[in-house]
């Protein structure tokens, strides 16, 4: 009986967590999309600097990693394909798995490591040093001031980064294509583009948009929920990273299933 009680309370806890994530994301969305029309201007300057930090500064490491991922994908696909003499399908295999799945996912994981953790650490430090309280006593809404600019930056930058990641992955695959599968560079690129439908790219971008929402909500919620001292900030940061990765994969699963069943018709 105690066993079921434990399951019950952990389900309740998880639902409460998802509830507070949704509420935070909802408030951030309100200050982003509705607030500006009700005389609460969006803090554009802050959003731009967040976009620089979360997006533009992420490009070098993202490029390198997704280039390697593309190359790895090509090698793994060719390992199986060459048994059927179908090595030339490497281009479409890489292009499809990058745009539909790995591009958005790898981008999200890198952004979690760089920005999700940074959001939790920044807001957590502000919380324990009473800076969040200070904002409230100054009648400045912390969600509007701190979370909304991050939200804007992430939902804009994650799809952009994903497109770049897709491109770099295909570029990585082309190295194998050119050296081992008798492609010229341009023929490899054309073969990749031929394999892709607009639908593949769009579904990947929809996922990456949702990942952006998830990462921002988890990072900021963990930061805002920090109590105690510096040690707790570290814990919040860890929790933010672990929870973000878990929830991003969960969101990924839900949307992949959704697209799969929608695609049947």
């Amino acid at each position, binding site marked *: 009986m105690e066993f079921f009680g434990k399951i019950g309370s952990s389900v309740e806890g998880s639902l409460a967590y998802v509830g507070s994530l949704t509420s935070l994301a909802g408030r951030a969305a309100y200050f982003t999309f509705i607030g500006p029309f009700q005389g609460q201007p969006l803090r554009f300057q802050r959003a731009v600097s967040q976009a620089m930090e979360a997006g533009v500064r992420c490009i070098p490491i993202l490029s390198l990693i997704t280039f390697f991922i593309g190359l790895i994908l090509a090698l793994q696909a060719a390992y199986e394909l060459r048994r059927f003499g179908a090595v030339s399908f490497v281009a479409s295999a890489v292009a499809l798995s990058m745009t539909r799945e790995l591009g958005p996912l790898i981008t999200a994981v890198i952004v979690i490591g760089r920005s999700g953790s940074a959001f939790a650490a920044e807001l957590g*430090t502000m919380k324990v*040093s*009473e*800076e969040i*309280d*200070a904002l*409230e006593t*100054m009648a400045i809404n912390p969600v509007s001031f701190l979370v909304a600019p991050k939200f804007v930056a992430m939902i804009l930058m994650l799809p952009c980064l994903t497109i770049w990641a897709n491109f770099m992955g295909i570029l990585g695959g082309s190295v194998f294509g050119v050296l081992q599968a008798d492609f010229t560079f341009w023929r490899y690129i054309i073969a990749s583009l031929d394999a892709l439908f607009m639908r593949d790219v769009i579904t990947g971008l929809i996922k990456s948009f949702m990942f952006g929402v998830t990462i921002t909500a988890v990072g900021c919620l963990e930061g805002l929920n920090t*109590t*105690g001292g510096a040690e707790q900030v570290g814990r919040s940061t860890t929790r933010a990273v672990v929870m973000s990765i878990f929830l991003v994969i969960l969101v990924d699963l839900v949307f992949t299933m959704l697209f799969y069943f929608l695609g049947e018709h």
Partner: protein
Amino acid sequence: MAPSVDNLGVDDSFGGPMISLRDLRVSYSGREILHGINFDVQRGETLVILGGSGSGKSTLLRTLVGLEKPTSGEVWIRGKNFSAISEVERDEIRKRLGMSFQGGALFGSMTVGENVALPLEEHTKLEPTTVEIMVRLKLDQVGLSGFEDFLPSQLSGGMKKRAAVARALAMDPEILFFDEPSAGLDPIIAAGIDQLILELKKAFHMTIIVVTHELASAFLIADRMVLINKGDVVALGTAEEMKNSKHPRVRQFLDRIPEPAVAQELDYLQMLTEPSSKSGEGRQGKSR
């Protein structure tokens, strides 16, 4: 020099007490911290809230500025029931309050000037050049002229506190709150902060609420004092009345008599064994 603030329903000529507490009770996770507090603070008065560590004085201050919600009872600020009004109305009142936090709570990523400018930029439509002048004026008032471009991390403890006061003064508040203004400062710097509070009181006729356990500073700045012990008001009166009080708890606090060891240990044990004490611990630690 008062910035143009929209006075949504806030009456400028309010004559009653600036703050009234009516049977105020606050609990954290089932454990009551404040057990029915009652007192008024008049316009232009400096009230010092005294109390030991864990007495609930910081919780009281946090409730006054709306950071904690009362479980029952009322906080009236300028004739408005703070916990029963809308968020918009509450924000309008908050614009007339200034709060100086214990550690300063300056935004680390902004310069001192940007910190002071923030409430002005957020709540007024002043030109950037006017804001700049206001910032310089406020920093001048707290003796920090020329420090606009410093980051909070480049300031000493006392300067941080002064910068925090400048930020609290930015909107020309009617009520100014101080959380442990002299905590962690050496006696000379602490005396400087006391002097600053006295100057503000004299120059602007502000209502000032100070939470502290520094007796010397309390007797210097207070018009009236209230002593909080274990969530109850033990004594309330002028500095003179407090000095002459016969109440054992007041005497113990003012004469700095340590708690009898046995009682203290029993208290401690009781705190540990109380069922809800564990969950309340984190909050207590935070409220200092």
